[in-house]
């Protein structure tokens, strides 16, 4: 029976990193969950992005070795509306992705998530995404990296944005482009505290987003063949291992049934009080591992330690 891989995105420790947590502290917390993978945000984690110093690179590889973690996904951005009055050209977008592919490869990553600027409230990506990615498919192939845009609330699975990504994969036949699912799309109860940079304006105008778009987990079946990596977005898990927003008791069995064997990379996005994220991530790992073990036991598979 297929088994999940467990990882943590350093996005989970937002605000702690840079105020009360060092990169090595973060490695310790990730390794302490029993994870095998670490996900970073390139321009966040690398203090001289896009060009890491030799000292930073030496430290990076030493930390990977000491904590026995493998680099999973590197998050990157294509800032299409680069100035107030000017959008990136396809050439500029392609150069941005090429730069991040090379950096991700240098650090040992297997996935690159470029976050494209959007043109509307449906999060339709700027149309340069397609030529910018297509120009990099050969490079991604050479470097052994899969480019993964994320399917992120308020964009559901059954949506023209997702359809356009799948049409691109089918047209090009590429193995170096896929979908990353952000589990925030399954949120089915409202958020009372969002850790994603909440402002008064967002709270007033983005109600559907904060209330959750409630994508049925069954829709995963339509796209799972294109999904090699999942960001396990969550906002609050209480001391009874009850998640207040994300229905893991439905997500985990569905992923198991579909044979998903990739990473679940924790993305905590809740209260940003100091150090809260460390315990929240640990609770999520305890919860998902418990649900995976229960599924395996009920289906005659191995119970994972």
């Amino acid at each position, binding site marked *: 029976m297929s088994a999940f891989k467990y990882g943590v995105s350093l996005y989970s420790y937002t605000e702690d990193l840079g105020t009360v947590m060092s990169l090595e502290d973060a490695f310790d917390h990730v390794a302490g969950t029993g994870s095998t993978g670490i996900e970073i*945000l390139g*321009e966040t984690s690398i203090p001289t*992005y896009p060009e890491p110093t030799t000292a930073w690179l030496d430290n990076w590889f030493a930390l990977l070795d000491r904590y026995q973690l493998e680099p999973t996904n590197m998050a990157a951005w294509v800032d299409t*509306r*680069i100035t107030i009055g000017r959008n990136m050209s396809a050439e500029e977008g392609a150069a941005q992705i090429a730069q991040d592919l090379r950096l991700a490869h240098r650090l040992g990553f297997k996935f690159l998530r470029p976050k494209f600027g959007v043109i509307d409230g449906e999060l339709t990506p700027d149309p340069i995404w397609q030529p910018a990615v297509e120009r990099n498919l050969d490079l991604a192939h050479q470097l052994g990296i899969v480019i993964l845009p994320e399917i992120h609330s308020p964009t559901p699975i059954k949506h023209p944005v997702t359809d356009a990504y799948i049409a691109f994969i089918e047209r090009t036949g590429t193995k170096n482009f896929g979908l990353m699912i952000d589990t925030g799309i399954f949120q089915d109860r409202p958020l009372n505290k969002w850790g994603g940079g909440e402002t008064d304006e967002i709270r007033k105008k983005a109600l559907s987003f904060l209330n959750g778009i409630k994508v049925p987990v069954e829709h995963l079946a339509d796209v799972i063949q294109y999904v090699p990596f999942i960001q396990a977005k969550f906002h609050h898990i209480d001391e009874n291992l009850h998640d207040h927003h994300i229905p893991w008791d439905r997500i985990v069995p569905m992923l198991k049934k579909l044979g998903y064997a990739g990473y679940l990379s924790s993305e905590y996005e809740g209260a940003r009080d100091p150090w809260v994220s460390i315990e929240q991530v640990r609770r999520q790992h305890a919860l998902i591992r418990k649900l995976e073990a229960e599924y395996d036991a009920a289906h005659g598979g191995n119970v994972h330690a």
Partner: protein
Amino acid sequence: MLERSHIQSTGFHNIGPVGARTGFEVRIRQPNYRSSRLSLIEGVDLVIDGVEYPAEQSRIRVGDREYSHAEMAEETVARLYVGSYFTVIVPKAGGLAPGVHHVASSIRFRHPYFPPEFQPVFVRDARHATIILP
């Protein structure tokens, strides 16, 4: 490491010659979760003790480089990194009086991946901070 608040205690001081101050400075932690090209910051508005100091009249210092509001808008390469701060330089004849002030900041962040109606978003902070020297 920096204080958790965006507005930092250290760095809040008057500038210019003693007795003929030309303004004041406020140090602000880069509060976003990723580094930001300067061109994605559409300005930093301040309110000190109820008096507004709009972004268009201030300059921003990052490291040892200073930018006017217009120069920031076109700077697409230099970045504000997570874990770092920038300084808002505000012209004000005489500077601020020594003592505790109420300082509020609002950073206009443009996130290109946010729906256009949320470009920019206003990332706010407010606290008390102290000017020591007149």
